[in-house]
């Protein structure tokens, strides 16, 4: 890494930029912004397109139906969570669904909380996630 930085510092334009703190801050900002969207391809949640500039992508068209049961009895998520969160769940956002599961597990101890989402996509086959006890396995 230090040798890479030394090499970068020797390139004509970049060398001058990296010679000041202001220049280094600009270079860091640009590098982070260029690289950050790559994180999308490393995420386990394909629906989570945050910080990746994937506006209007095919994944944006994914539609998921979340369902929840408490001890195998259907549970109305709309009575517990605001509809804006349900909208995010319908877009398949894992972190939101996992947080919903955690909340239900906390509010209903010693209960089996199952949340699943059935998703349909424009560019791939339909897929279901979850369906197991989220109090035991808190991640989708």
């Amino acid at each position, binding site marked *: 890494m230090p040798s890479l930085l030394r090499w970068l510092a020797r390139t004509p*334009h970049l060398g001058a930029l990296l010679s000041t703190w*202001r*220049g280094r801050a600009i270079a860091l900002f*640009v590098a982070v912004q260029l690289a950050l969207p790559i994180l999308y391809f490393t995420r386990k949640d394909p629906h989570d397109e*945050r910080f990746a500039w994937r506006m209007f992508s*095919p994944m944006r068209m994914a539609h998921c139906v979340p369902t929840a049961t408490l001890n195998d009895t259907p549970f109305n998520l709309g009575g517990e969570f605001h509809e*804006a969160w349900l909208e995010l769940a319908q877009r398949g956002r894992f*972190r939101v669904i996992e947080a919903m599961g955690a909340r239900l597990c906390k509010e209903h101890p010693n209960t089996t909380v199952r949340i699943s989402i059935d998703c349909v996509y*424009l560019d791939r086959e339909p897929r279901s996630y979850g369906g197991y006890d989220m109090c035991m396995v808190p991640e989708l």
Partner: protein
Amino acid sequence: MAKKRKGGKPATKTPGPAPMASGAATKPAATKPAAGRRPDKAPVVVPLRAPEPTFWFGFDVAWAKLVVVRVVLFGLLAIDAVLQIRHAPRYGAGGFNVAQIPGLDALGPSRATYEIVQLVSAYLFVLAALGVATRWVLPVVTSLYAWMYFTSQLDGYQHHYLVALVLGISCFVPWQRRPDAEPATPVRTWAVRLILVQLAILYLWAAISKMNGAWLDGRTLANQITGPLRSLVDSSVGIKAAAKFAIFAEITLALTVWVRPAWFIALPLGLLFHTGILLSGLEIGLFAWLMLAMYLLVVPDRAFIWVAEQPPIARLRRALARLPLEGDVATGVAVLGGTTLGIVLAMLCRLDHAFTMAIALGIVPIVLVAARRLRGQRGGAVVGIAHLAAILVWVTVDRASTVATDYYRFWGGSSRRLGDLESSERAYRRLAEIQPDDGQGHFQLGRLLLKRGEEAEGLAELQRAQTEEPARARAYVAEAEYLASKGRTAEALEKARAATHAEPDSQPAQQLLDSMTKPNQPNQFKRPDAPLDDDHE
């Protein structure tokens, strides 16, 4: 007039205004007269050489352009901040939140804090738009915006992220006017270059995300655009070609938007592209307008200078410059008048905390003027004027839009669905108060009161709703259901009939009447209540 420098090359000794951010050396003519044509005794302004790399540190824009961008960009953000208040009831609802960044869930705003922070943000954006204390105002409003964005995934779309980034960068733009600034004065600012580079990165990744079969064959686009643009696309190039054009446009913009010599490509293409998004029917609020506003940065400087030097504008500038805003009396009148009138004006704003915040923010002009005094500067009347303008923006946006009624409607609806009936009642009472001639507040309030056993007031509210929305069945249905549940069958039947008369196509009304007149109808009073509600976001 300064010779235009292209491609970020370092400035040489050119007669004309020197870049402001890096300072300038003005000295008597020390160089040889150029072909003996230089007027006698005219000073030669020698811009300081920009530090390397000049791509960043030699980038300058005309003062006229910076002013227009400042007013339009921050003005739009001020309007957007007030409009966002309709989403406040989402925040903290049911005590649930998921932050953008793990670990920040507990720091998310509540309904009240979100509303207050958006009011304060709108206020600060107006101050920034008018060039008041931008070095202080922008970091504060950027922090507030970043707090709202990063601590909750609600409203966490890509454009909110972009605005957070652009605001962060714009803290480093010298937005405030120097005393000697003229429209053509170049202002050296690497931060504007960085905003353009940020836009290029956005376009690049947006194009990459579309490079797959589902986009290229037009399926994705066909599912997303509606409205006039869809008709235009269908009747001309077709959706498949439009999808490919979107990728072409984004790649071209990624390559051109940050390079001054290529602005002649980026400007028309970017305007066309974002106008298209504006016409696409996508619900992205003011984002397309914000992107169009950012394209002001790509308009050639000479266009702004030309406009600023047109006689009517030049006269207006001179008149504004002559206003006696620097005197103590003018400052005192502006600050005291601005804060007092601001409080009076805020009484017209129907948003929950607007009046309280107008009183609290009255301290801002006083502090800003005091800070000027401590720095040995006089004047500051513009601060009082900006304060008043900011509150005027609250009131105007409120009165010209449905933001206040949506706020109370969504608040009442979400509280009711999440079981907080007390909070819901407060919201609907306020809705009925600010819009008494709309049946929504009366209807929902009536139902809540009846549920709580307040029969007289509840029925009165339902009857008021029937008066205000005579062509809707829902208030009649609700009253009929209540009366029937109390065994007042004859009155209930009368109301059920009135419901079908008011809205003959209403399925709930017809079902109710059938259930009362045909005894073998099942589920007499247990229909889903969704058809009666329109308080969902």
